[in-house]
């Protein structure tokens, strides 16, 4: 490792501002390979071994089950749609050929933008995009054109994050900005029956519908959607990473056990969704309202949103009490959008964005309660 470090040190461009981009790229690579040997001088002399890179990598690790399952499911849906039988590896390989380019585009373009901003702002490249870069592909429909992924990623990083000051400063979830951008800019590519299945060169067999379960539920209610077991396993159409509750659950387990993801937000979002769903079930009226609440939570992006999107510590509420309210709020709004507005069968994305916007207000209320308590203590002479 010494040799590699010496080589890296030799390659170090001067930080004199002539080639700021080169310096940013070098610095990013170097700090990726080596944690720098900075030592403490003021304050504590010892520090916890965790840093932001490790935190972010834990989230990426937690996303791996969803990614692998997503790759397999893309292949599975493809062969199902064209009516061919295929081996496990064939499905997986087909999926990999479809999904990996999206991942590469997302990381390549996103990191490119980050490097440029790091060079302009003369700060170190920050780790936030490690997670966003993985989240973006996982919430895309598989048939999304690669150029759209690139455009959406640029939009998300620039407008969603860098204009606010970069990692840790953004107001709304960066990955969801990418998704929302595509949703509103290219609606035909982000909804309907066609985009969720990769047909490749094949043609769909007669009677095959590629609509997502939620799309079907709007029309046909519980009769039209896969069984609750199928939705938990996840071999159904949908965005690449969001179909399997089991794979997402594995990720949730990693996040909760390592303490990286907020258990409070995940749980309260499910509770909020469940309660709202139960109310709709009780009211009834149309088939969609009668889809059992628990079943609703297993469909679409609800689980994925709850585990990976709502828990983003930067855009979520930051106080412990606030996190509970924040989760509940998202759960409720997500169900509300789903049933009340059939044009957006996938309400979770919008619900989380709305939650992001409300998060500072929730924190404000929580912190103000503490301030009031403190003021009460003061005795007026």
């Amino acid at each position, binding site marked *: *490792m010494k040799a*590699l*470090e010496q080589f890296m040190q030799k390659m170090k461009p001067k930080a004199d501002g002539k080639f700021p981009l080169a310096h940013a790229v070098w610095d990013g690579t170097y*700090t990726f*390979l*080596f*944690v*720098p*040997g*900075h*030592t*403490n*001088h*003021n*304050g*504590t*002399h*010892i*520090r*916890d*071994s*965790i*840093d*932001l*890179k*490790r*935190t972010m*990598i*834990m989230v990426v*690790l937690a996303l791996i089950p969803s990614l692998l399952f997503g790759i397999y499911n893309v292949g599975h849906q493809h062969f199902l749609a064209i009516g061919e039988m295929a081996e496990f590896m064939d499905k997986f390989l087909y999926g990999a050929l479809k999904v990996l380019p999206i991942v590469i585009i997302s990381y390549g373009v996103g990191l490119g933008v980050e490097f440029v901003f790091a060079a302009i702002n003369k700060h*170190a490249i*920050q*780790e*936030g995009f490690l997670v966003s870069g993985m989240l973006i592909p996982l919430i895309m429909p598989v048939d999304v054109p690669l150029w759209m992924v690139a455009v959406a990623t640029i939009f998300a990083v620039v407008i969603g994050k860098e204009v606010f*000051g*970069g*990692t*840790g*400063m953004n107001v709304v979830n960066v990955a969801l900005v990418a998704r929302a951008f595509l949703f509103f800019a290219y609606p035909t590519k982000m909804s309907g029956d066609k985009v969720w299945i990769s047909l490749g060169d094949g043609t769909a067999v007669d009677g095959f519908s590629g609509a997502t379960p939620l799309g079907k539920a709007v029309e046909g209610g519980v009769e039209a959607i896969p069984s609750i077991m199928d939705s938990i396993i996840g071999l159904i159409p949908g965005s690449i990473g969001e179909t399997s509750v089991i794979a997402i659950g594995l990720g949730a387990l990693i996040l909760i*056990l*390592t*303490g*990286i993801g*907020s258990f409070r937000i995940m749980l309260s979002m499910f509770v909020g969704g469940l309660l709202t769903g139960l109310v709709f079930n009780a009211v009834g009226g149309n088939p969609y309202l009668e889809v059992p609440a628990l079943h609703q939570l297993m469909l679409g992006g609800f689980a994925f949103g709850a585990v990976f999107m709502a828990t983003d*510590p*930067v855009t*979520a509420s*930051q*106080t*412990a009490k606030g996190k509970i309210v924040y989760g509940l709020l998202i759960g409720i709004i997500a169900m509300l959008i789903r049933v009340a507005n059939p044009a957006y069968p996938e309400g979770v994305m919008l619900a989380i964005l709305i939650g992001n916007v409300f998060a500072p207000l929730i*924190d404000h209320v929580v*912190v103000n309660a*503490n*301030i009031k*308590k*403190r*003021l009460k*203590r*003061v*005795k007026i002479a």
Partner: protein
Amino acid sequence: MSKDVKIRKGTNIKLKGVAEKLYANPVQVSDVVLRPDDFPNLIPKLCVKLGDKVKAGSPLFYDKGNEQILFTSPISGEVVEINRGDKRRLLEVKVKADGANQFETFKQGDPNSLSKEEILATILKSGVWPFFRQRPYDVIANPSDSPKAIYITAMDTAPLAPDYDFVMHGQDELFQIGLDAIAKLTDGKVHLNVNGNDNPDDAYKKAKNVQINKISGPHPAGNVGVQIHHIDPVNKGEVVWTLKSLDVLTIGKLFKEGKFDASRVISFVGSKVNAPKYVRTILGANISGIVTGNVEDGGRYISGNPLSGKQIPENGYLGFYDYQLTVLPEGGNTQFFGWLPFTGLNKFSLSRTALSFLTPNKTYDLNTNVNGEERAYVVTGEYEKVFPMDIYPVQLVKSMMIEDIDKMEALGVYEVAPEDFALCEFACTSKIEVQRVVREALDLVRKECS
């Protein structure tokens, strides 16, 4: 009414190099240094010149903001160095021991029969006053204030901290004399906060004239700020004074013997120390005598504990308030893929991203590496796990960073000191220098509001 306080949040960082409960062989102290920098916000004015002969208790400098507050020489000898920094700021005054052990004499007597004014005058004149610190602002107390209460903490939960019960053992009489003197200084209560995790020493249990509170739990339970918060919090406009129980011994000696006896016991600890023990030395002493031959190479010397102590050179001097000398391995090495989770058996983390969570009782040999680069706040909830006050630490620190004094007041700036945030700083994923932020904010609020 005494109180039992149980602290649940926080953590004990288990480090290698705990002091054995033995006293090391005594070492002669060659010289001592008094550093104005040990006292936040102090504007020092010298009262000695180079070459002056001083006795223990003779003033070296005083506080320009409050000329009653004197800083006196811990030993008798000669002023051999006066070091100044930028703009001629006074950095340190060095006194070389002459071995004669002469003391200035002060009024002695049973504090119970002395008046408040007599006690205060003696304490101020002898140079013992700076032991009294105050909340808010964590600075030397103002002797003309009338504090709501005085808190004496008889425990230290910081990593490798000395065991106050061990050091106190057998000094019941001196301790009580000191307490009697302190009790005269306030109309409010004097709180003696003892360690509720163990059976406290008799000197504490038998203490009279004070309210004894038992504090138990992990670090920072031993921080006086945490104790005050749970016993009777400080509000805007109120002042409390704080001291360590070991400081009380110096006050006890002052009234029993009429002299400023600056000798103290420190714990000499850390993984780089060959035989960590307790050492009898003097306030501000040169550490060369203690460390020579007892420490491995490549260590960082810290006067105080690893969380909030000050770095000093290997021939440096103990700080005014420090009862601990820590030597930790110096870091500075790059770590190849050091950020990968679950690598390295000797990495320690409060989060469960290192293997350390599997072995909660293991002791660690941590060096001084930052283990990452500074970032904006991203991770939430980690300060709250180690900050046992009903205060929102991140929100308070953020208001400090933007110098919003109204917000700081509302969020509890009057109750905190930098040391209360030491564990937050340790745990911080974003590697923010929290204690520096807090110190600067306290200085700012003090300047603007008083």
